[in-house]
């Protein structure tokens, strides 16, 4: 008998270790339910062409331009239509240098190419670009394939923000690698933030603050969505030496093997990642960024950030809040099943159509096609989800998309929380460390059933707080589409 129970314990342990660190996601099950809420459609790309979509620009008249890693720009008419078999593609430009970030403005397409930011114009009206204006090309490149340049859409001043990947993702062998810079409409190059490693996308939130995704690696324990506050240091000191080119103050030289919280308290310019995307749990390589400003046309996620994921071929959802001068918030799994590794994500804010594209060349992805261009639309049925998680001085408030079943939502058994962080170090990535298990002491459901106020004993500043929900149903009896979120608690709000 004793023997048997011992075996059972062992079996239980083995199962736990295989079934994964708390909160491993059942991707298949969540993707199976996706079609209840969202329609994902592959858009046919030009026949016979390799269209590894690296950029998407929305144009007037429901035209959509795609840029490819091979450097072609194609313009689609009919990408919004129900019958996609009639889509018409026109080639606008050929063989540019890997454009990563593109938009339409005042009759031109603007593309961030690896060596330069370019305005492409069709002056003679034959449908093909004939004028290529180099707006800015001040940064260094040396022939290293990893020296990517990612560009945003223009901000309210008309400036375009760019993030410059390190040489080989480890070094700074060319000027301004590892920096964010702004390019003004007249072509001025304004280095704006340091400390960047290997970006996968860049985009603004609804307030106009600029964010980028940085990939796990050296000085990056896990990938994250990071806020490009002007003058900030983003955590990777490799590119610091470029500061001397413009007599900027030297960016921080943090201590390896420390924690982000420890180091950023030493250096006020060190802006910690707004939302960390736990490596291997939420994703592996975040990419394009779109803010949902569709006023409900894409679902009830107004102001939330939608972030592409290359390896897992997914889109994650992030709610941001501003606490004590820093952004922070929670990431949730959202859309999946895309056909290749996603790179750009673009939202048509008027129409509520989200366009994504991607490729798995050079870096593998769960989606097994070599390249893809897709659109996603909300079908009108709001999934039962955590809408957002918001920090409080003594815990969190979780808002749901539908009123909850009050009895289940008030039951403490249905909440489990654990926290962890990563080592902040010069080596590649980090294990999860400093784990703690706070106690959820009370769960109070609001009168309208949409909010649950959690009082939590043991919040840890600087840690990722992982909230796993149990059997919580909506009042109408719906089960949760996704039952967990990861909140990066940079700051604990005051009472």
């Amino acid at each position: 008998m004793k023997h048997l129970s011992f075996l059972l314990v062992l079996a239980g342990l083995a199962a736990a270790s295989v079934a994964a660190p708390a909160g491993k996601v059942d991707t298949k099950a969540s993707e199976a339910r996706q079609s209840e809420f969202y329609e994902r459609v592959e858009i046919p790309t030009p026949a016979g062409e390799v269209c590894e979509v690296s950029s998407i620009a929305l144009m007037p008249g429901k035209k959509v331009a795609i840029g490819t890693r091979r450097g072609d720009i194609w313009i689609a008419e009919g990408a919004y239509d129900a019958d996609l078999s009639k889509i018409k593609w026109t080639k606008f430009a050929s063989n540019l240098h890997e454009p990563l970030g593109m938009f339409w403005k005042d009759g031109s397409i603007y593309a961030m190419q690896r060596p330069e930011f370019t305005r492409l114009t069709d002056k003679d009206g034959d449908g093909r670009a004939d004028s290529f204006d180099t707006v800015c090309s001040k940064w260094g490149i040396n022939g290293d394939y990893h020296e990517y340049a990612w560009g945003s859409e223009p901000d309210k001043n008309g400036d375009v923000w760019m993030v410059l990947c390190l040489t080989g993702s480890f070094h700074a062998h060319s000027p301004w690698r590892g920096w964010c810079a702004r390019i003004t409409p007249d072509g001025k190059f304004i280095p704006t933030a340091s400390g960047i490693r290997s970006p996968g996308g860049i985009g603004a939130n609804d307030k106009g603050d600029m964010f980028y995704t940085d990939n796990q690696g050296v000085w990056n324990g896990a990938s994250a969505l990071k806020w490009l506050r002007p003058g900030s240091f983003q955590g990777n000191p490799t590119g610091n030496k470029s500061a001397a080119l413009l007599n900027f103050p030297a960016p921080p030289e943090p201590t390896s093997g420390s924690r982000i919280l420890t180091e950023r308290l030493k250096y006020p310019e060190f802006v910690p990642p707004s939302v960390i995307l736990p490596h291997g749990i939420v994703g592996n390589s975040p990419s394009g960024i779109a803010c949902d400003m569709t006023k409900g046309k894409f679902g009830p996620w107004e102001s939330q950030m939608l972030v592409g994921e290359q390896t897992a071929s997914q889109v994650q959802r992030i709610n941001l809040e501003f606490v004590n001068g820093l952004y922070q918030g929670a990431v949730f799994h959202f859309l999946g099943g895309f056909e290749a590794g996603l790179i750009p994500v673009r939202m048509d804010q008027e129409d509520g159509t989200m366009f994504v594209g991607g490729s798995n060349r050079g870096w593998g992805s769960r989606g097994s096609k070599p390249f893809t261009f897709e659109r996603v639309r909300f079908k009108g049925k709001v999934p039962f989800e955590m809408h957002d998680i918001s920090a409080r001085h003594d815990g969190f408030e979780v808002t749901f998309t539908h009123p909850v079943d009050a009895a289940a939502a008030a039951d403490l058994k249905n909440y489990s929380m654990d926290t962890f962080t990563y080592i902040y170090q010069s080596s590649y990535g980090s294990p999860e460390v400093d784990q703690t298990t706070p106690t959820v002491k009370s769960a109070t459901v609001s009168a309208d059933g949409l909010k649950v106020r959690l009082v939590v004993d043991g919040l840890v500043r600087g840690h990722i707080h992982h909230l796993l929900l149990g059997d919580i149903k909506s009042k109408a009896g719906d089960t949760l589409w996704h039952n967990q979120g990861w909140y990066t608690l940079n700051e604990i709000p005051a009472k």
Partner: protein
Amino acid sequence: MRTSSLLALLASLVFVTAAEDGAQVYNSLCVACHGPDGKGLNGLPPLVGSDWPKGTAARSIKIVLNGLEGPVDVAGKTYNIVMPPQGAVLSDEKIAAALTYVRATFANGAGAVTPDEVKAVRAATSKRLSPWTSEELLKSHPFPPSKSPLKHLVATVYEGKWMEMPDFSTLKPVLMEDFNVGILDPAQSGRKEYYAVVWTAQFEASEEGKYLFTFDCDDFGSLYVGGERIAEVKGIGPLGKRSKEVPVMLKKGLTPLRVEYVQYGANAAVLLAVKGPKDKTPRALSNAKIKVVKEKVSIPIQPKDGVAAIYRNFIDNTSPRAIGIGFPNGLNIAYSADDVAAELFWNGKFMDGGHHWTDRGAGNEPPAGTNVIKFSDGQGILLEGAAGNVVRYGREKEGSEWKFFPVNVAAEFKGYDLDKAGNPTFRAAGEGFAVSDAWVPEEVSGKATLTRTLKVTGEKTVVIVLARGLAVSGPTDGVAELAGGLLVRAISGPAPKANANDKSLTVTLKPGETAVLGYSYR
């Protein structure tokens, strides 16, 4: 009882923790090349089925610490790759965890690796700065002998000069020997040239199913399985083009196998490999292994329908901001946007995108055509007696570090226009002036020519470098000849001047002036 079960529990917990960490390291660092299942991605070596992670841990620790470069045989194939060193990046604990994971998961449960073992190897190899070679590692840490499926291997050696297969039943052997290693190797003959070997063995099939045999010889030979000749390589020649692949259905157990092999002259080699029903990769049964030559993908980029082609990417022997233009008359140029100068001239094929447009596309690509002449180097637009005040950023290597500095130049790149035929007009500008630089393909007296029109506007007198770095003869009658056979002919405008100091050919244009030049091969 209770204590011991608790200890067992604790032990299993410790193991679980270590294994998770190793998986984490593997999945963040190693997975991109070796794949989530250890089978290798994009033509990179697998860990599954490989002898490398097996046996002594020191071999694997050295590879992780310092990397490995050059040809390496893995699971029956030869690769020529660079595994980047991780010693500066990973702690002893991480390396131990990752290798423990790799050995447990992909190497049939080879033993765990401890941080102390890694620490010891790190200390012993601290002076080693470059990656290891396969040869070095296998000399210090050979693979444990593996069990060959070739049982009772006997080599019978004959001497003589044969151009075709002799009848061995009529010949008298000079040597007959058992080789327990189960590997065919012409060196077993003890001879250098003009000999033959007949190997006989029992091939042990571990299960019933299809076995794919690969057979090749330098010079010629035959492979018999189950008494039947299944493959023949005829004539004199090296390994490679005559290689045969033959599937054979075998029952579980022993099947007779015979190889007849003739070496004419020197350079002996025999290749025999087999891929069983459950094998992922062929297994070598000879000292020669199947070479995996990664086929170069070709994506030709050529002018089409009389319209010039463009290629923006890293082009060899110019600067990173290169713009290639392939004209329909068979002439091509590469323009450097860093130097605001056309720098390369070639004819024939324009560019091949196969390199940059597959995998990660690392590095430069040379022009696809012929007669490549680098006719200019460095800044192509200068001001007389002034450096200019356009700020760019340069770099210079000091020791192992790159130093950056601002550089003042006269002009920087402003873009280009393409006409209907794809012909480019490059634009550059500095303070108070602009330069346009148009290239059009023409036939001049039956000769393919690129006509270049340079125009200066604004308020500065500008020196334009037409060529630099090659010996210049002339100009004579308006024609300058550059070493390598490129002619630069002045068609209209101010006359170009040759400058012996920096081997350059320049033309000085005042505001509003235009110079027209023809570039062609001699």
